[in-house]
């Protein structure tokens, strides 16, 4: 945890510097007749962020903040594995949206989570994985008129059928 604290402060400090440089693409001072330049607000705020990072580093060195005093690992093996399985599932979910549509990706993700991670029965996992995207389809597309990504062209027949129902 102690190393996590200083590493994160370092990354945030670098990000603050990057934001300051990026903000300086617009004027950061006061322009007569126009007020503060367009980059002033983010530039000075990023500057304050940098100062805060320095103070966090100082607290880390003085071991005054709880994470800087902690010897426990950032995540233990089980924690990394859990985050990997759930986080990996989420990445795959979002990656699949533009391939098999939002609704298809919901079905796959729910089935993965319920059956593989949640250890629910196959029947329950299948029912929830199929019913939820259908419910969402009729709510968003039918009631709210909000169109979700339909994925690649091979999903068209399914959506043609569903759109025939609501339109």
């Amino acid at each position, binding site marked *: *945890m102690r190393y*996590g*604290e200083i590493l*994160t402060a370092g990354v*945030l400090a670098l990000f603050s510097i990057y*934001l300051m440089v*990026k*903000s300086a*693409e*617009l004027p950061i001072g*006061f322009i*007569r007749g*126009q*007020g*503060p330049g*367009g*980059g002033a*607000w*983010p530039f000075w*705020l*990023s500057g*304050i*962020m940098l100062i*805060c*990072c320095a*103070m*966090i580093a100082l*607290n880390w060195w003085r071991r005054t*903040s*709880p*994470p800087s005093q902690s010897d426990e690992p950032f995540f233990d093996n*089980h*924690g990394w594995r*859990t*985050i990997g399985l*759930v*986080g990996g599932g*989420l*990445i795959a*979910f*979002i990656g699949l*949206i*533009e391939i098999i549509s*939002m609704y298809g990706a*919901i079905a796959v*993700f*729910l089935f993965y*989570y*319920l059956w593989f*991670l*949640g250890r*629910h029965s196959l029947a329950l996992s299948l029912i*929830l994985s199929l019913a*939820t995207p259908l419910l*969402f389809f009729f709510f*968003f597309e039918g009631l*709210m*008129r*909000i169109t*979700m990504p339909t994925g690649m062209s091979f999903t068209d027949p399914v959506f043609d059928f569903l759109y025939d129902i609501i339109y």
Partner: protein
Amino acid sequence: MEILGLLGDGMLIALQPLNLLLIFVGVTVGLFIGAMPGLGSVNGVAILLPITFLVPPSGAIIFLAAIYYGAMYGGAISSVTLGIPGASTAVATTFDGRPLAMKGRASLALVTAAIASFIGGSVANIIFTGFAPVLASVALSFGPPEIFALMLLAFATFVGLGGEDIPKTVLSICLGLVLGAIGFDQISGAPRLVLFDINAFLQGIGFLVLAIGVYGIGEMLWTIEQTRGEVENNTPKMTARGMMSDAGEAIREGWKGTAIGSFLGFFVGILPAAGATPASLMSYGVAKMTSRKPEQFGRGSVDGIAAPEAANNSASTGSMLPMLTLGIPGSPTTAILLGGMVIWGLVPGPRLFVDESEFVWGLIGSFYISNMAALFINLAFIPVFIWMLRMPFTILAPMIFVLSIVGGYAATRDMFDIWLILFFGFGALVLRRLDYPLAPAVLAIVLGPIAEPTLRQSLLLSSGDPMIFFNRPVAGPITIIAIILILLPALKLFRRKKPTTAVGE
């Protein structure tokens, strides 16, 4: 007495069978739209606007106002049950609503939200009825310096909300403000902070993207990591007696927050640039500052739910005031309502109360009826929401992930934002592990886009003289109070006292 007579006539119009039906349908639809992460009153009103052309103008505006009311009540539901603030107006409700739900007191949280919303709405309706023209002129006297002073006051309350580690709290606020500045410079129109030259950043980072990332994805990852995915379900069954007992507790424990939210919410709500979001945030901050038990805030304080919920309902009614009396919308939703009124051939402004008296008083009467209907419909649905919470965590967790992604997409219709939500979710997990308060960042990204333009407009007005924030009769006292509140935590750095809890963490 004349006002009471007009209000009585207005209520009779609102109680006509068609209008009453529209109120009940509108409130129910609004409740469910508001409860869905990513959708708020603005979506409901915008989507259902075309339907209103099927009924007379008075019925149409009553229907839309009922949706608005219902959505304001509904915003608390996703904040409490899922931990995701569905709309910016419900951010502050998450801070205490979610912890209370995690303690198995979700019904108390939902009942508190419903009662506080009702009282907030009622207080606002009474003030609206009695003082509409006077308050409209007060709202009009608020220029950029006054609005910025108000934003400064809101930020000042955030510093106190962050907790013990001041550098991390200030960093969190600044990060939220900078993220809110991404996209275009609002004054010059020049592209600004297009990170890593990715064009998708030109559209900026919306509040919901950060909020869903932090509270939807990040919160769930945190819970799964901390509990090893074995969350104990301690939500009790809902009974009528339990709800009555919760209602009593909500009134006893939350009266102060409700009072603060009701009055402060209305006042902030009538200001054209402010609206329900700053109102709820400021009310939360003030409720914490004036509380005898400030350490309870962020851990499931009833006052912490009552204050923002009373405020966002009160502000919703308040934001109708400049719309009707001056033709100035106080929020995106009232902007759509204004558009609807113009389409129906009504001209909002001072003459509306004279020329279309029946319409105006029918609408005001419907506020009272909608508020009452929203309370009963909301209370009736609480057992359904509680039932949802009683689902096994291994079903609830993937549902929340799916709602976060779908809700995020519904709000922005951009896949880039969905990846950003995921990035913020993982970032929130790391930062939370290291005791960074994340609530101030979410609050800052909401208020930053209001604060920056008003600061720059004020400095333009004064040719760069910052004294404009001190020497105006309204802006001056607010600025001074805000500065005092900002300096208090700074003093805490040097005189460390007993630790306080970070809000929403």
